[in-house]
């Protein structure tokens, strides 16, 4: 019931904003949808798989850079650029995961962080592709179907459809055998091995799937802003995604999307509005306090608190 309501609001949103003459918010909402996808992908490894990856920006950024670099080389077709972005991010996740998953706990957090920072510095030093300044795209990817994605309405609905598809597939996966196994590994890795599961293989595949979805989100964010820059790969970006997941609910299905929406809206409200006047410069402070409150009073995140209330 609730999900129908959400779908309805999401579908009507651009029309309502258009009627109100506030088209800016449609673009903002698209950004929220893209981050919802990225956060959901992180929640898969972090919340369901129990793998605290602190380098998720690597895959997000890789997806964005692949689209931007391909565009710089003249390949703007969505049908080529996006699958390559997804495959590239998946490959990066395969390599990084294959090495990182040999470690546990704090070491895993640190090594994933180190890999992401390595990618950050690699892209900063790629002078041919913008270096520090990043890379601008000439425009959004071309569909070859006579539909232009530069129309913000079309773009919004495409992103919304992709997010819905990703969430649907994640939902299937989590309730299928694979999902049960990765949750079991999170709960008790030793026991999962002792009943016959090759833990490493399940974790690695989970990590790769998550990286691939983050790569798709990255391809979308590059299209959204017509830009791919090194900040997308920076550890702060990994941290932001992690905050979204924690805020929304670690291991809660709607945790990623809710966290992304709430964090971005808070940022928007406190940084841009006349609400705080000259203090808007310090928007991190109120956002931080709200985060603190959520962690203290809703340890299962907002999705967890919502679930509890509806019971």
């Amino acid at each position, binding site marked *: 019931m609730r999900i129908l309501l959400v779908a309805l609001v999401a579908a009507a949103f651009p029309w309502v904003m258009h009627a109100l003459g506030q088209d800016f918010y449609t673009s903002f909402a698209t950004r929220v949808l893209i981050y919802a996808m990225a956060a959901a992908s992180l929640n898969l490894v972090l919340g369901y798989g129990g793998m605290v990856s602190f380098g998720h920006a690597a895959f997000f950024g890789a997806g964005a850079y692949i689209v931007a670099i391909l565009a710089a080389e003249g390949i703007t077709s969505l049908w080529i650029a996006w699958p390559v972005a997804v495959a590239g991010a998946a490959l990066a996740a395969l390599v990084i995961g294959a090495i990182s998953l040999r470690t546990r706990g704090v070491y895993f957090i640190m090594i994933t962080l180190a890999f992401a920072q390595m990618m950050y510095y690699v892209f900063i030093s790629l002078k041919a592709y913008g270096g520090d300044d990043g890379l601008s795209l000439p425009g959004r990817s071309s569909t070859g179907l006579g539909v232009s994605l530069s129309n913000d309405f079309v773009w919004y609905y495409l992103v919304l459809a992709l997010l819905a598809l990703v969430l649907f597939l994640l939902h299937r996966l989590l309730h299928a055998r694979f999902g049960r196994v990765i949750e079991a590994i999170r709960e008790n890795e030793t026991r999962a091995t*002792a009943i016959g599961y090759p833990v490493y293989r399940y974790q690695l595949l989970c990590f790769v799937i998550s990286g691939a979805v983050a790569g798709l989100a990255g391809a979308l964010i590059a299209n959204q802003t017509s830009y791919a820059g090194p900040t997308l790969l920076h550890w702060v970006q990994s941290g932001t995604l992690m905050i979204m997941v924690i805020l929304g609910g670690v291991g809660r299905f709607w945790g990623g999307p809710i966290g992304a929406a709430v964090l971005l809206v808070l940022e928007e409200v406190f940084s841009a509005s006349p609400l705080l006047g000259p203090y808007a410069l310090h928007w991190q402070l109120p956002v931080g306090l709200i985060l603190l409150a959520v962690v203290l009073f809703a340890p299962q995140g907002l999705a967890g608190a919502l679930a509890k209330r509806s019971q």
Partner: protein
Amino acid sequence: MLSLKGLSKRFGGVVAVDRVTLEVRAGEVHGLIGPNGAGKTTLIHQVSGSLPADTGEILFEDRDITRLAAHQRVRGGLARSYQVTSLFRRFSVLDNLALAVQARSGSSFSFWRPVAAERALFDEARDIAARINLKRVDVPAASLSHGEQRALEVGLALATRPKLLLLDEPMAGMGPEESKRMIDLVRRVRETVTLLLVEHDMDAVFRLADRISVMVNGRLIATGAPEAIRRNDEVRKAYLGDELAA
């Protein structure tokens, strides 16, 4: 069924398992006893594959499994339980068992079909719950009593359909009443599964085991029928002491 040949394990300067050669015959309950720190649990870790062997061989049904990964040994029919209860604590009893059934029935690299639709998994999980006498199957494993958790521990191993089961102190921390129930459970299990039983409860071991091996300081000092072990001078001196003399 299981034979260990010259199995060793060192931790730095400490020799935890020292050239152990041991044979577990199909169908028997083989007790493994020894004072604390004798290396029994290390030996179980080596046989189950969670610790590599420094030297020596492990043969299971005449197959060399010394280098096999732990999960492959389980699939080959060699399961274990833990001395410290190791469950999926937040999952229901039924989900715990269904996960173990799932591990050996078909591939779990399956991403579309909901597990809930696989009735066979849950039917079998219910059967096992009945076998280990657990009535409440929909509660989280963490909410069970200690004795029930120990039974579930054995149930998880049983769900993998083992040919040989390594039981690491199944009676650990149990009162007399719970111990009695566990002994009954082990008796029922042994009808279909060969057992290597590590246990501190001497009374239980001597009642359950067909043969007993005694480990002291990493070395196996005797193997034999319970009566022979009871009378063995070296065993009495090294380990049993006055406990049995009385």
